[in-house]
């Protein structure tokens, strides 16, 4: 079964536990500047949005890479960067329509979410379930459910 990160911005409080968990997993440091997931704050609107790679099936980044440094992890479906091949050309960062592949000055390579090999630490660290790791076929179903609930006649009307 393929699983996906499912992000519900409405539940996010902007605490950045996900960024710390991600950076700790990948660099051994608590360091949001090295996180592959980013939480954006829209101050005026009072909203927060965690954002990271959605692992496109037809991944633009993978197709754009001139040295085949991005491959598919067959266990998780994650598009994974191989540091030994990446030359830091950044073409993938241009190809990605979502901006979720990024260059890291610290390593001279590009970085992106790799789903932590199937146990994404951002989801594990999220205190409000704004980030969950679910059956890929079920992404978006919670919103569909919420929308369906809204379309029901009120309890009084059915009683």
């Amino acid at each position, binding site marked *: 079964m393929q699983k996906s990160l499912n992000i519900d911005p409405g539940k996010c*409080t*902007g605490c950045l536990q996900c960024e*710390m*968990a991600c950076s700790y997993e990948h660099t*051994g*440091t608590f*360091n949001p500047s090295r996180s592959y997931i980013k939480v954006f704050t829209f101050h*005026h609107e*009072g909203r927060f949005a965690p954002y990271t790679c959605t692992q496109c099936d037809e991944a633009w980044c993978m197709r754009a890479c001139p040295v085949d440094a991005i491959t598919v992890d067959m266990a998780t479906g994650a598009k994974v960067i191989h540091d030994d091949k990446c030359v830091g050309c950044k073409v993938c960062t241009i190809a990605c329509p979502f901006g979720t592949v990024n260059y890291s000055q610290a390593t001279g390579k590009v970085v992106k979410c790799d789903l932590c090999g199937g146990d994404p630490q951002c989801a594990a*660290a999220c205190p409000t379930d704004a980030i969950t790791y679910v059956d890929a076929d079920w992404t978006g179903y919670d919103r569909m459910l919420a929308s369906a609930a809204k379309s029901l006649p009120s309890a009084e009307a059915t009683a």
Partner: protein
Amino acid sequence: MSWTRKILRVNLSKGSCTSEPLNMEWAKLYLGQRGLASKYLSEEVDPACDPLGPDNKLIMATGPLTGTMASTAGRYSVITKGPLTGAIACSNSGGFFGAELKFAGWDMIIFEGKSDKPVYLLIQDDNVELKSAEHMWGKTAWEADDIIHATHQDPQMRVACIGRTAENGCLYAAVMNDKHRAAGRSGVGTVMASKNLKAVAVRGTQGIGNVDDAEAFMSATGDGKAVLAENAVTGQGLPAYGTQVLMNVINGVGGLPARNMRDVGFEGAENISAEAMAEPRKSDGKPNLTTNGACFGCTIACGRISTVDPTHFSVKDKPQYQGNSGGLEYEAAWALGADTGVDDLDALTYVNFLCNEDGMDPISYGATVAAAMELFEEGVIGTKETGGVELRFGSAEAFVAITEQMCNGGEFSADLGMGSKRLTEKYGKPELSMSVKGQEFPAYDPRGIQGIGLNYATSNRGACHLRGYTIASEVLGIPVKTELNDTDGKPELVKAFQDATALVDSAGLCIFTTFAWGMDNIAPQIDAACEGDWSVENCLETGERIWNMERLFNEAAGFTADDDKLPRRLLEEAIKDGPTKGQVNRLGEMLPKYYEVRGWTADGKIPEETRQRLSL
């Protein structure tokens, strides 16, 4: 380790920035943040100095856990000699600035001297420089934050800065960070302004990779988060209602002061409560509260993100105040609301925005306005002094007008900026200042709740609930319920809360965790992160050491047992009605015992044997 072991020393007179190693011997005795920076202040500053002169220093300090994955571990404190009180000041703030400072590789910044011209400090990891802030002087804290972000084009940069009230000499000005988080009390922002320092902008990319025992740390912090999530206060009450959950609770037990503490019990409490903030309003169908927001690393997320009703008179013609911003917390809602008698939620939210925008402590500000209102109603001052404002209890229009005047430096702003002690002295009515050591009370009446009165009287930074939150025990029953009107056992309770709080404030953690966490939850997190012995016992002793060190600073600054007192109103004017009717605070029954359990002399001095016991 968790400390970065590096201090940034900025001499504003010389314009120099130098790196020096953290004194690790002191770190093992005082941990970090509040404790460690207070140690530096005590060693480097003459306690008798003029708080607004170049000899005072201003320290921004993180704790060893700041910037780690421990829940709430994003705190930093501003430590200095406070101008409102003349006592040691230590104001703690959340948001994201503290963690960013740590990620840039610094445990603390010590500012000394005074710059000739307005400057701001720019920190990008090891690259540190002072830059001209002449174009920002005279701007609000929000404008300064925006200018810095526009200049450096780095959305991840975090800014701590002062607003116009600090520049204008208001003695309770705050250091604002991340726009609506504040190192709020005692006038730490005023000290920053006195040094011609407008802002500190920081971007850190180094992270923290040196926790002492990573495996134990992840396990201990994970356990801690589970405790917070399962606790009714930290897991449900605070995220849903924020600290404002207290408004109706405290009013209900007869502990909510109103109208400059002339009354206890506020008939308008419900209108300004958490429940009211969640109620959809008529004009646009939205509630005051948009959502809750977290400070760095916080799994509680009690922060309020609010809007003012766009049709409300205060913001109707001001679209810049119609969006979301930092909403009312309990202490602000009380001081701005119950204490001024104003129960207009939108007016209070707007005034709270202005307090954030121009960097004022809303507790001291609200309480000072309340004192001015009483002066006005007694006929001691009139519209001549207030710039034409009919400054009466309960008038939202007057409150909004006087606050705009305050921020803009209008007629009455110099008087209000003195704080209630100096204001009431100036007009010959010192008994109307509801303060200890010159700092105004927060939102719990010491007549209704005895222990908090003792805590106020003995707090090292003047009246403050955050020095020993006995309300947890006296009202909420955490960790055990004590009776509101009992004085027995309160000296011991106050000491225990004061010492534990000093430790939490020195770790990088938020005191709100202690609704759920005991020291047995906290010590293992510190112990795993830091080298040395951080057992429960050592943590508590460290807290006691810090408390006594602060007391010694104040003693050298000229404070005596005579300053451990409450205003006459709270000792003699009994509560007129409600569940606590007839009560006064019985400080005299508690204070001698408090000195005794602290190991102090009968006149509140710290004897040699207590100093030795605490390695002071």
